[in-house]
């Protein structure tokens, strides 16, 4: 129970903090367009490993033909 309570409390606290600090919105895309440069968008090592490993398994089983249906 500790973990989930902690997770909910963290989310709630962050949203409350947000509510205290931020307000307003705009429908203009230019306000945030291109604010994150593409070269700063890198996948994590964990994701890279996941993609590599699952792709390797797919490659390994590509020619496998077991059983009859």
């Amino acid at each position, binding site marked *: 129970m500790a*973990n*989930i309570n902690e*997770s909910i409390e*963290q*989310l709630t606290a*962050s*949203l409350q903090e*947000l509510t205290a*600090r*931020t*307000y*307003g*919105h*705009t*429908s*203009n*895309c*230019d*306000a*945030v*367009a*291109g*604010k*994150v*440069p*593409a070269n*700063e*968008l*890198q*996948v*994590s090592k964990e*994701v*890279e490993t*996941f*993609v590599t*490993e*699952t*792709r390797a*398994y*797919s490659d*390994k*089983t*590509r020619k*496998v*033909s*077991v*059983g*009859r*249906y």
Partner: protein
Amino acid sequence: MNFRQAIGRQVQRLDTGIERDFSNFLFVDQHYGSNPVLRRIFSLARKHEYHSLLTEEIRDADCALLAAENTALAVRQSDFQRSEVHRISFFRSTTSQVPAQSDFIGYVIFKRDFFTGQPQPRVHVFESVMPPFRKAVDNNFIHCQRDYEINTSLGKFSVTGVLYAQQNGLTTVCAHVGLRTVLACVLPEGDITYERMNALAGIDHKNRRVGSGVGGLEPAAMESILNGLNLPFDKVVHEPSQQLNLPTEYQRDLYGCIESGFPALVGFELDDPAGGATGGPRHAIPVFGHTFNEDTWMPQAQRAYFGGTQSYFPSENWLSTFIVHDDNFGPYFCLPRHFLKRDKFRLQYELKSCPTTFNAMQAEAIGFAFCNAIVNNRPRTGNDWYDRFAVFTRRGWLVLRTILAKKDIYLKHLEEMRAWDGASLEADMLQKFRDYLPPKFWMVEASVPELFNSSRRKFGEVLLPCDRPLPSALNDSMLLATPHDCRA
């Protein structure tokens, strides 16, 4: 000439309303040998409030497909004599009314094959198209239904649904009929003959046979059919006896395929204590839709109480069942999520609109990584919805939904999209998408539980190329369409 277009010779026209004491059970018992699949189809007709049926006989001379089927049977079994085929059409109107298109529900082709020395014919439902009873408004989603026209002696009618077929166990097996359903969902003509499938698989019924006494189709033969039709697909294999243990959950991949509007064929092993080291017999079924439960407890409970470790909620968590046909039982059954567990799962072919360098699950992981990267680079903007996106991302409460999107459909979505203040996406921004989007790409929607399961609104979408080996963002300005605003 197929069974839908063939001229039928009217056998009977019957009123079938419950108020007239018509019994589906008695009718199927008396005329169709208590066939359980037919009983299921009649049951669907009842749910669609049918009030009459039309039975027509289809003869070899009027139907080239029937003649070809019988020729294949004669090659396979020298004692094959003849067949009898009935086309049964279901109507909402009574026999005293001239049926309109709105009265037509669907049809079924019932085939009896007679063999020398066998007192009873072998029977099966050669095909049927019935509309699914439940619709999107009931949280039932079938994205790959097709329209079929049927030429009856009462006129031409059309039905929209997913084609169902049953094996005859001699020239066709479960893989044939499952693949036929899958292929019917994607081929321009909306169907394929077994003659063509067998030709592609190298089954000639003499040197290479299937069915009774021989066994089913091998995966390699199924792939010959898919490759012979130039259809892109992903293959998922779990064969513990070969030390091939699937590292992921096959249902996540299956959901990605279904949500992208494509069908899949799923193969599994049956319980068989006598199976030995080679395992039990196997069966394959087509999967083409899913149901959804907006209020499911599972996503958050799984993580909170049972050790879930994911950094986000896959939208697949809200899936209740997959919608399938099973040739043993009939059309439109719901397969509960996680009922068919990995220990029984063996094989999956997921069709897709184009070859991709990574699958839906991998695309989703990459999409989440980019959401994280965006938030890490820009934790706050002072815009309330962006900042909520950042909070939900960092705290692991995002809901991600991944589909292989098509440019024209996506552009239409952008054009129609409105912020809560009524604002649409700026014309110059829309033009950028028109100019730079490839024809197909992965779209990873980012939402939160309280949006996803109610208004279907979202924070935004991460678009990823589907044809590049290295995961990277499609461009340097990710689309971020918030419930209040549009952001790019």
